[in-house]
């Protein structure tokens, strides 16, 4: 029993004098508690809704008012009645600009007055099955409150909901494209970060450094090699998604692969930046896993809708590459969206990859000049 004390003391000294481990051990739980307890909630505050009010009556305006005069719904798209073609709204639904469409029939007011049953139509984007469920409940809640203001219309007003893109609200449809986004970034970043930190450890990087080869040639050369590997990984996951999990791939695969290329490039560049900063392979690997997995899962909209994040985290989600790729992959795979539906996301992702590869080359040249 005498042996316990020295072991305990040594372990305590060891852990308390290792600031890097301490940061991970103490900061991570604090960070997570804050994210879950404060910044993330399953309540949706910002459901973007498109409204087609074919009735244009006082009564329909009242119903619209019920939806818009609360913190949950925000009107997006053409003003009510401006464009009644449902296709325009469906395009917005496809591009993710709106989460649902409410359609009020032209005879809404008349039917209510005459106590004839009338349908209020809702089209909900089902690609995020969780959010779709919550939106469905909010619709019900607001309609109930609308009904409450009149007498005996409970039986007349009926909700008719259509779920687009994932009619059965299967959570695998929601999770699989999301996990592809997370894994692809992680794998790409790991590939380069391990490659460079390994060369740093074995010293082979010194030989490259004294050779006449240009720094950008090293970076681009490494990147091209690993693009093939990451592509192979992506193909395997997509095949699994399609044939094992039965997820329909509605959109164009070439478009998906084109944007994957940009996304992979972003991951590879990120890996290089991390490995340059990390002193050894272990730190490089831990750092890469931490930087790629955690934010991609928590803050990209993979699990929690971005609209339900607190302000700071919502802002943070804008600098996470997975945020953009997730939109793209969900749009292409589940909604069959085309490039024009996510042009902005694609452009931001492209810009990110260019900035990151630029930083990677700069940092690498700097490392080359003052290795040590």
């Amino acid at each position, binding site marked *: 029993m005498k042996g316990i004390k020295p072991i305990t003391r040594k372990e305590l000294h060891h852990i308390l004098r290792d600031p890097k481990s301490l940061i991970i051990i103490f900061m991570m739980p604090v960070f997570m508690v804050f994210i879950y307890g404060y910044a993330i909630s399953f309540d949706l505050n910002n459901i973007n809704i498109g409204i087609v009010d074919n009735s244009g009556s006082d009564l329909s305006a009242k119903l619209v008012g019920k939806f818009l005069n609360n913190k949950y719904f925000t009107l997006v798209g053409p003003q009510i009645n401006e464009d009644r073609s449902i296709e325009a709204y469906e395009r917005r639904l496809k591009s993710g600009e709106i989460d649902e469409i409410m359609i009020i029939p032209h005879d809404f007011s008349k039917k209510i007055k005459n106590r004839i049953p009338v349908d209020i139509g809702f089209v909900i984007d089902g690609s995020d099955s969780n959010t779709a469920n919550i939106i469905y409940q909010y619709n019900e809640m607001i309609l109930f409150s609308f009904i409450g203001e009149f007498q005996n219309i409970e039986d007349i007003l009926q909700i008719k909901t259509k779920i687009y893109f994932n009619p059965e609200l299967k959570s695998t449809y929601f999770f699989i494209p999301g996990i592809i986004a997370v894994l692809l970034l992680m794998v790409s970043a790991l590939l380069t970060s391990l490659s460079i930190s390994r060369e740093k450890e074995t010293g*082979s990087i010194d*030989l490259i450094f004294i050779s006449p080869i240009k720094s950008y040639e090293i970076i681009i050369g490494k990147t091209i090699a690993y693009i093939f590997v990451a592509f192979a990984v992506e193909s395997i996951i997509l095949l699994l998604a399609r044939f094992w999990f039965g997820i329909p791939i509605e959109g164009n695969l070439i478009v998906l692969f084109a944007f994957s290329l940009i996304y992979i490039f972003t991951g590879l560049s990120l890996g290089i930046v991390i490995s340059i900063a990390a002193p050894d392979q272990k730190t490089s690997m831990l750092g890469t896993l931490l930087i790629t997995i955690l934010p991609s899962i928590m803050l990209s909209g993979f699990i929690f809708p971005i609209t339900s994040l607190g302000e700071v985290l919502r802002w943070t989600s804008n600098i996470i590459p997975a945020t953009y790729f997730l939109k793209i992959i969900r749009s292409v795979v589940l909604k069959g969206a085309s490039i024009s539906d996510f042009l902005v996301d694609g452009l931001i992702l492209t810009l990110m990859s260019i900035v990151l590869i630029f930083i990677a080359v700069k940092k690498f040249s700097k490392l080359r000049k003052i290795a040590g």
Partner: protein
Amino acid sequence: MSNNIIEIKNLVKKFGRFTAVNSISFGIREGEILGFLGPNGAGKTTTIKMIMGLINITEGEIIVDGMDIVTHRKKIKDKLGYMSQKFSLYPKLNARENVEFFAGISGLSRDKVNNKIAELKEIIHPDIIEKSVENLPPGIKQKVALFASLIPDPEILLLDEPTSGVDPKMRRNFWQDIYELKKIGKTILVTTHNIDEVEYADRIVILHRGNIIVEGEPANLVREYDVDSVETLFKEAVKKNERD
């Protein structure tokens, strides 16, 4: 003026508060083999890396073939070949692929790369050339690494502990190769902590805790310090420096 191809003056390297190299000055003459000796942590690798421009110098000067490392880093790199103690080959590649890689990054044309591979085949058995380097014995790895460091045809070779982990027979073979290189006019700086190897060097510099404690020709030094061997001289010099 001396015919030193490398001139090191008052060279200092500090890592934070730790002084790895403490104001050392020495020269390397053109075409000689200089043995750079010292126990682990003496500052040998740090000095070599400063000569290659891989680490910034804290103070002092390194002049290679009349050029200052601070201002002519790129031109100096073209004159240097380097082999590290870890051999720095890619373990999953075979010897031929390693040579192709280093030839490629040195900017050699396809024809020249092929010539290099033909040369490699003369020094390494054809059966071994296609084996992953990780499965090769240290002696062969060492040969391949030396070959790779010579690919850009450098005037000066910096060999950092090239004989570590290699058996005595292979070490002797290696030194024969070094002699051949000296014969064709290469200047060679070899670091080692195997004192028995100093007999091969034209001159030696002994480094301890960042300071030069002995410098000169092995035979002269033995006479001057009145000791039976360089090994004894080394041990006594290190001991004396530790006391001081």
